[in-house]
């Protein structure tokens, strides 16, 4: 279980997160909702420990957290495979080629395998982010805007992958603006508004 207690974060006297407390059980698919600038990304960054928090604490109970931000998450001069190998080195994990090839095909990236990542479209970059998540071991995936830049088929694939991961008792917390499209797959949803969670 992921326990967050009284999490606060400010930027230049503006309180973005104000004493947020919540618990998330494992095996849940959780949506984090809110307007632009409401603090969704800040929340994910604070929980994943890349951003310093003002007060409060986040208890992972020794679970492994993977945070994928809303950027490209690539080394742009590498191709998909080299990028994956590099990231796996940073996580001290080795590549399972069968798993890699399986998800490469599922995500529709097979034909772009040898291209440098800087030459991929934004939609395919987004799919590559999912490929990274599928090849790494983790208990909690915190992913910022996983559906942005994706066409309808891409969104469908991501939904299926999320449900597949959930069936393996993995927890996914994702931020989105457009909850209506993904309401059917979520177990819980939280809205960040004026620094508080509802």
């Amino acid at each position, binding site marked *: 279980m992921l326990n967050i207690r009284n999490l606060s974060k400010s930027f230049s006297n503006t309180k973005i997160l104000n004493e947020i407390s919540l618990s998330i059980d494992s095996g849940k698919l959780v949506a984090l909702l809110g307007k632009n600038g409401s603090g969704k990304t800040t929340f994910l960054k604070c929980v*994943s420990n890349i*951003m310093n928090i003002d007060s409060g604490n986040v208890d992972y109970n020794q679970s492994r957290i993977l945070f994928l931000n809303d950027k490209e998450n690539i080394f742009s001069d590498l191709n998909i495979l080299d990028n994956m190998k590099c990231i796996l080195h940073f*996580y001290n994990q080795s590549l399972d080629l069968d798993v890699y090839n399986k998800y490469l095909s599922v995500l529709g990236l097979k034909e772009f395998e040898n291209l440098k990542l800087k030459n991929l479209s934004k939609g395919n970059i987004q799919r590559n982010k999912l490929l990274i998540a599928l090849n790494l071991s983790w208990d909690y995936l915190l992913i910022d805007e996983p559906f942005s830049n994706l066409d309808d088929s891409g969104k469908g694939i991501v939904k299926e992958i999320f449900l597949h991961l959930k069936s393996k008792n993995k927890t996914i917390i994702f931020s989105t603006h457009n909850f209506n499209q993904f309401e059917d797959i979520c177990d819980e949803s939280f809205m960040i508004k004026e620094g508080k969670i509802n």
Partner: protein
Amino acid sequence: MIFKLIKNELLLEIKSSNNLFYMTFFALSCLMLSVFSFPPSKINEIIILSGFFWIIVALVSIKLIENSFAREKEGGIYDLIYTSPIENYLLFLAKLITFSLILLGVQIFIFMTYSLISISVSIDLIFKILALCIISDIGLIGLGILIYLMTSLNISRSFLFPLILFPMITPILIHSSNIFIGLCLDSDISFYTESTMLLLTFALMAVVLGVNFFERLIKY
């Protein structure tokens, strides 16, 4: 583990479109152009060469550090790397070792090429120069990484980074230059003992500070 990280950094530098080949070529071009302006006396040539050599080394080391972090930030992969379960000091050491090795390669290449066209500098000195370069590079790169991270959140970082870094690395450059001159002129070892001790202190200080503070500096 650290070997995998070093391999990663080397691969990224080699595959980068803004890589060390261009830096080395730029550095060598600067030196070759300056050869013609050197006075025709051995001692003057070595003194000026030494100054040029270490200024080039300082600029290349800054470029190496900036490229590496810029690559991670532009690709948006910074968060993914620094939230990995690997101890952050290993990430610092991997960067330190890789950049020091790259810088060493650049230094050897420049020195060897220069020694081919100069009668004042002999290629036999390469192993002594190599030892000097290793100690200097660790200090230069270690301090460079730390100061880059300290200034990276400031909007004036392009200005602040060199502004803070240059005064910090000036002692390294001056003493490296002293030893370089001593080695080229085959001076007695007592000529550069103190300089060697100072370079060792900087190298040690950079490693200790980096190992202890890198984790705090990469968070924002």
